[in-house]
């Protein structure tokens, strides 16, 4: 190895450079040719999630593009700007769907979609991303347990503030056998989202 000539080193370097360029080009070409299909797929997924919260017949606007950027907020649990999706019928506001985060799950953040009707009642809540313990805390997911549907129709007055907690903490919401932390985090995040909506309702539906 001690007798590698400068020429050989340059050759190897050039060869490596060639491969880096070829590899990057291929990835870039693939990225370019798939990006529109990927964006469309992601839009469809977003629509599927939104329509799961808000029945399609209650809105007639393009909810995926009728968005508003919300600044980071401790009530929403967000540290960066997030989108709020706005449902309207005949131009009148129907509901807003927030990207909220429960920061204190058992294994980090639990990402939620929270749908709130104009009158401040909940259209529904879905967990979109989490890392809770399989078999225990992951019952916050709809495909594991119907628990998340217990939020449907609830609002800041129903139950009263003291009821916005899991039963072990004296509230109205069930916890899971062996897992209190995950549902506690979700209940708090949903309640905070409702508070956020109450304080910012006017701004949210502004054009």
């Amino acid at each position, binding site marked *: 190895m001690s007798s590698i000539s400068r020429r050989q080193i340059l*050759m190897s370097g050039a060869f*490596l450079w060639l491969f880096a360029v070829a590899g990057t080009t291929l990835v870039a070409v693939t990225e370019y040719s798939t990006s529109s299909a*990927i964006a469309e797929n992601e839009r469809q997924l977003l629509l599927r999630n939104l329509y799961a919260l808000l029945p399609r017949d209650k809105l007639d606007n393009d909810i995926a593009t009728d968005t508003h950027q919300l600044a980071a907020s401790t009530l929403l649990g967000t540290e960066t700007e997030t989108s709020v999706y706005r449902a309207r019928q005949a131009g009148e506001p129907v509901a807003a769907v927030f990207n909220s985060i429960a920061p204190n799950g058992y294994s980090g953040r639990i990402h939620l979609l929270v749908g709130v009707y104009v009158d401040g009642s909940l259209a529904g809540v879905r967990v979109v991303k989490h890392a809770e313990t*399989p078999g225990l805390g992951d019952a916050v997911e709809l495909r594991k347990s119907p628990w998340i549907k217990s939020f449907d129709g609830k609002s800041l007055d129903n139950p009263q503030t003291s009821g916005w907690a899991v039963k072990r903490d004296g509230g109205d919401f069930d916890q899971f056998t062996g897992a209190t932390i995950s549902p506690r985090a979700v209940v708090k995040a949903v309640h905070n989202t409702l508070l956020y909506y109450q304080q910012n309702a006017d701004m949210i539906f502004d054009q």
Partner: protein
Amino acid sequence: MTTRSEITRNGIWSNNVALVQLLGLCPLLAVTSTVINGLGLGIATMITLVLSNSIVSLIRGFVRSEVRLPVFVLIIASVVTIIELSMKAMFFDLYLVLGIFIPLIVTNCAIIGRAEGFASRNPLGPAALDGLMMGLGFLSVLVVLGGLREIIGFGTLFAHAELMFGDAAKALVIEINPDYPGFLLAVLPPGAFFGLALLIAAKNWFDLRPVAQHQDASAVSAETV
């Protein structure tokens, strides 16, 4: 010159990536909580192995040995990224299930191991076959381990098959006992280690068994004589 049957036997059994070479354990242990997860990662790994082995074999004449490892890494990383993007564009639902596991393939040392140990010294045909068979061997272990952990951990088999094969596959789901309380340890990472250890032990037992039988037989015949 390695023959086709030798390559096949090596890949699937006698030099199995997961059971004998013990490579690629990071993705193996991370995703095998269900059959479907194991199957998905197995297929993606197999495609990566075939493509990376083929490309490495095609360029084996030009690569200077000092830079071969960075070149292999570049090839593997590009192939995996392209697979991920194509999957996201064409099989989005499958991507939603496996998306987080695809980048894990890059951490699978079995792929660079086959590039260096086999593909860089063999022509295209055998190299591609080796990729396919090594991939198939890895896939089988992922599926068996996934099945083992799913049955013990959740009491089901093929759960969430619809995510990969469409709604018709919901019929595939087998619930062994609806009241099964579940066994969390099997689902968590320690369960993966125990399961893999059992599989390795079973394979070794199977490989050593004919020898033992042979000895028994000779012992018996010696007695009768």
